[in-house]
Structure formats: structure tokens, C-alpha cells
């Protein structure tokens, strides 16, 4: 999933405004950041994503993110929310991609990236639901403002561009 992760972060921010949006976006993308960092460090596993998207990797990342958030903000419900947002990354990626489970375990996922139209509908739905919750963090009179609607429109547009790229390219390597 791509822009859908941001939709989850938006929804989480609407659910608990005390947790900063930048932090929730970072949490929603954390396995991808771990992937990029490991790639830059040259720490490649034989199975792509094993160190960043497998069950144990995502569990560790969620725990680390929750502990760091708790250390900085002393907000236990917020820490659980941050952990849940990190875990959501893996759940979402199992729908749109194929990811490892554990060392020696099977690869699982629906690989909707190979069906960009379905992927777009699904990710747009996640963005839309997340945005509906996020919108609640604004005063009622501002929820329909152009600037608030622009968040939804921009994310769906970015996802559309991503799905067009998926449709015309044979597959982009992450690392």
C-alpha cells in the first residue's frame, strides 16, 4: 500500500488529535523507512522485506515506536495507537503486496499491485475513510473547506499516479 498508509495516519490523528500527525505518518511508513535504511546500509536479506515487513520485524518496530512515543509524550493510549498504526502497515501490505511472514515461513499477500485498478479503488477507500475521521479534528464549520478537502483530493491523485506507474512498469525494485 502507498497513499493508503497516509490515510491510516490521518484517521489515527482524527481519532486522537494529541498524537502529532507527523509522528503518525512516520509510524504508518515505518516498515518502509526501515526497508530503505537497511537497503542503504547494505543489509539485504535473502527474502525481500524479511527485516522490515515480516511478523517479527513489524512487531519489533511497533514496540520500539510505542516505547519511544511513550518516553517522549507519557501518553499510554497514544503509544498503543502508534503501535497499532505501525502494525496496520503490515496488514495493509498483505492486501496490496506479497510479504514475508517469518524466517523460513511462507510469503503471503494478494499482490493487488499487479491489478492497479483494484489497488486504486481499495487505497482510495482507505484514504477516504481515514480522511473522514481526520476531518473530525477540525471545527465543524471548517470541515468542508477547500483546504481540508484538498488533503483528500491530493492523496487520491498521488495514489492514481502511483497506480498508473504500476500499470505501465513491469515492477519497481525497492532495493
Amino acid at each position: 500500500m502507498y497513499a493508503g498508509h497516509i490515510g491510516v495516519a490521518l484517521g489515527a490523528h482524527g481519532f486522537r488529535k494529541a498524537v502529532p500527525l507527523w509522528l503518525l505518518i512516520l509510524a504508518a511508513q515505518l516498515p518502509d523507512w526501515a526497508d530503505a535504511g537497511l537497503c542503504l546500509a547494505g543489509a539485504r536479506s535473502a527474502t525481500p522485506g524479511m527485516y522490515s515487513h515480516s511478523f517479527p520485524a513489524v512487531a519489533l518496530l511497533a514496540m520500539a515506536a510505542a516505547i519511544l512515543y511513550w518516553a517522549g509524550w507519557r501518553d499510554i493510549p497514544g503509544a498503543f495507537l502508534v503501535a497499532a498504526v505501525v502494525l496496520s502497515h503490515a496488514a495493509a501490505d498483505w492486501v496490496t503486496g506479497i510479504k514475508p511472514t517469518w524466517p523460513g515461513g511462507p510469503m503471503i499477500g494478494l499482490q493487488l499491485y499487479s491489478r492497479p485498478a483494484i489497488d486504486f479503488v481499495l487505497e482510495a477507500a482507505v484514504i477516504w475513510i481515514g480522511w473522514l475521521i481526520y476531518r473530525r479534528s477540525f471545527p465543524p464549520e471548517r470541515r468542508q473547506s477547500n483546504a481540508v478537502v484538498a488533503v483528500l483530493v491530493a492523496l487520491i491523485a498521488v495514489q492514481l499516479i502511483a497506480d498508473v506507474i504500476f500499470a505501465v512498469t513491469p515492477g519497481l525494485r525497492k532495493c
Partner: protein
Amino acid sequence: MVPNPGVFLISLGLGAGFIDSIAGGGGLIALPAIESLRLILATLGIALLTLVLDRRARK
């Protein structure tokens, strides 16, 4: 014509390798850094876009 043939050849190789790596090949500098750069740009780009739009919406 070419002030330093060594520099020219290395530059040519790096340029060709860069184009090859962007095109998805396993060229001279198809280093992990080049591949992961796409992921970083895509991930960072959408994050920054969202934060900018959120800030604008809250003004």
C-alpha cells in the same frame, strides 16, 4: 579534446551505469543507494505533501 581521458571514461561509465540502474538494470552503479532513493523519495514526498496540506488546512 578531452582534458583527462581517465576522468572521461569513468564519467561515461558512471553515467551509463546510472541510466541503466534507473531503467532497472544491474549496471555499474546499480547500488542499493540508487534503488532505495526511489523508495525514500516516494515515501518522504507523500509524507511532506500531507503535512504541508494539513498545515494549510489548519491556518
